[in-house]
């Protein structure tokens, strides 16, 4: 980057460089043990939990979006300024929301309230970033059916928008009273870490790896991977969201604790079904990576040329 002659720096560079440097700070703060004991460690845990998500995974996944979407669609990002704005707001709001993992805990009340306030503020970078991606894709969504990389990225963008917005709502005390400590949280974390981050990584690999190796994964292989992962994670998230809500309501209605365990049974079974589909999709993904690297390339026309044809 330092040797580039252009004045502007790609948005994907902003996010990836930032993400890598911030991750170093997270690691140092979380790992050094000499200052965190008892309740102090609880607050550092809260900081770590959400900063690992927000300042490590999120900027790197967004970096993939900012790189791959313009590349695959052969058009510039909708708004450079909006991307920069989302970058700085993400940087300032995200590190403050960690304590929302410990609402109603003995952590200082002001710390919890601050976390809730900035969880709401997170809507700004989330909606700004998502709008930027979706507006870049606008008018080109019909190319998605020709392009699994784009489908993966599209699901990733929707996962980012929906999952992060859900996170804001979950941070409210009134909703935490129902959902905190239940499986709803597990559903939420899979919607974000899987539906957003993992789909972003897959989309990025399918979009960019063939450009590096010159070898393609088969459309069938990518299709099987995509639908298994999408349907699997959908079942997983929906079942845990419903089950978690039932758990929380059981507790509020003063039912014996074991009742909440019994009531979860069908939802645990559905989680198992969803998880199995997700696991199978990972095996197909490994096969696809093999095709794109050491294996024999599939005969697939890269999307870029197809898009170009469509445009001309």
């Amino acid at each position: 980057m330092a040797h580039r002659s252009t004045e502007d720096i790609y948005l994907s560079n902003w996010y990836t460089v930032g993400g890598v440097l911030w991750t170093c700070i997270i690691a140092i703060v979380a790992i050094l043990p000499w200052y965190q004991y008892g309740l102090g460690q609880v607050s550092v845990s809260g900081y770590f939990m959400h900063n690992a998500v927000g300042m490590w995974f999120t900027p790197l996944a967004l970096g993939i979006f900012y790189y791959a979407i313009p590349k695959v669609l052969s058009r510039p990002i909708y708004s450079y300024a909006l991307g920069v704005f989302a970058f700085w707001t993400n940087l300032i709001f995200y590190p403050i929301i960690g304590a929302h993992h410990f609402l109603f805990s003995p952590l200082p009340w002001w710390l919890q309230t601050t976390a809730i306030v900035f969880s709401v503020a997170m809507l700004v970078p989330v909606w700004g970033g998502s709008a930027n991606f979706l507006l870049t894709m606008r008018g080109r969504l019909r190319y998605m059916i020709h392009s699994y990389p784009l489908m993966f990225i599209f699901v990733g963008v929707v996962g980012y928008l929906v999952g992060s917005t859900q996170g804001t709502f979950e941070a409210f005390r009134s909703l935490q009273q129902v959902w905190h400590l239940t499986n709803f949280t597990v559903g939420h974390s899979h919607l974000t870490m899987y539906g957003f981050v993992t789909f972003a990584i897959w989309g990025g690999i399918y979009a960019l790896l063939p450009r590096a190796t010159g070898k393609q994964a088969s459309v069938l292989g990518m299709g099987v991977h995509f639908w298994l992962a999408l349907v699997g994670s959908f079942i997983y998230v929906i079942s845990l969201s419903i089950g978690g809500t039932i758990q929380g309501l059981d507790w509020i209605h003063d039912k014996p604790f074991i009742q909440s365990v019994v009531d979860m049974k069908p939802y645990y079974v559905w989680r198992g079904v969803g998880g199995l589909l997700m696991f199978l999709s990972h095996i197909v993904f490994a096969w696809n990576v093999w095709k794109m690297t050491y294996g024999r390339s599939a005969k697939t026309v890269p999307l870029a040329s197809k898009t170009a044809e469509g445009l001309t």
Partner: protein
Amino acid sequence: MKALWLIIGGSTLIYAILALMMGVSPGIDLSHTPPGPNVNPLTPLEAEGRAVYVANGCGYCHTQQVRPLPEDSVFGRPSAPGDFAYQTPELLGSERTGPDLTNVGARQSSEVWQYMHLYEPRAVMPQSIMPSFNFLFRVVPEAPAGVAPVPVPKPYAPPQGVVIPTQKAMALVAYLLSLKQPLLPGAAAQPATTAITPSAAHVVSAKSTPGPGFDSAKGAQLFSANCAACHQATGEGIPGVFPPLKDNAVVNDPNPSQQIQVILSGLHGTTIGGIAYPGQMPAFASILSDADIVNIIDHERSSWGNHAPLATAAQVAAERAKLKHWLEVIWNST
């Protein structure tokens, strides 16, 4: 180039400041939270047990934090900052697949119950989904002197030999039994009358219930939370370990005096139907209110085919007064 340094230097500097503000400084500050009154460091054995708890991932399914919310009151009083002074690594947890353990030493104070439950959770809680921790136990032909074998019920017992806890299991149970919330200063030694206030109890009795002050739903819930772990939801107990309440002479006695006293002050060893029960039942005088106890007693008297006259809150209050009087007599005579 200037923009590059702005991104690299500026954003990293801002993030470092925010990390100091939101991570490091609360960490340092809260690490100096003084221990609350009666909060003591763990004994070496309990500390060893805590390491077993951490190593086996107990904290993934069990929390150790009671929130100031009505639904958490079954687990104890709300956690206070001073409760965590000696808790490193912290074990507050983020999910309750299983119940909160903040006060489990008071709630489930039977060592035998803890061993049976760890060896095979289904032996004492049929609907439990907790994994078996039988690898913390050993099966030997005969228990060595001084070690009590775990009374595992037939369907779960090994075909031959007896089950004895390893050092890890003993340490873990010592740790679990040490989990008791210390009383806060100013908190009444008497239990807070939980959900049922006298007026509420009156309203309930005025409606439809057979005995004054008996709320059958509340009774079933209190029994489930406080008694069913040992006596089982079926009231049949576990032969030789936890006594049955079904067809139990004390439970079916028209005079509830003895039943109330057992709940108030516990019981050490009894024989029912020719089967000896050598265990120790904890005292509930400081855990349950009179209204709670009458609900539990009436639940026991009207469930599993038991048909005994229901007790009243006044009878419980009278027995509590008797107990207090006896304790004063003993206190004064020593």
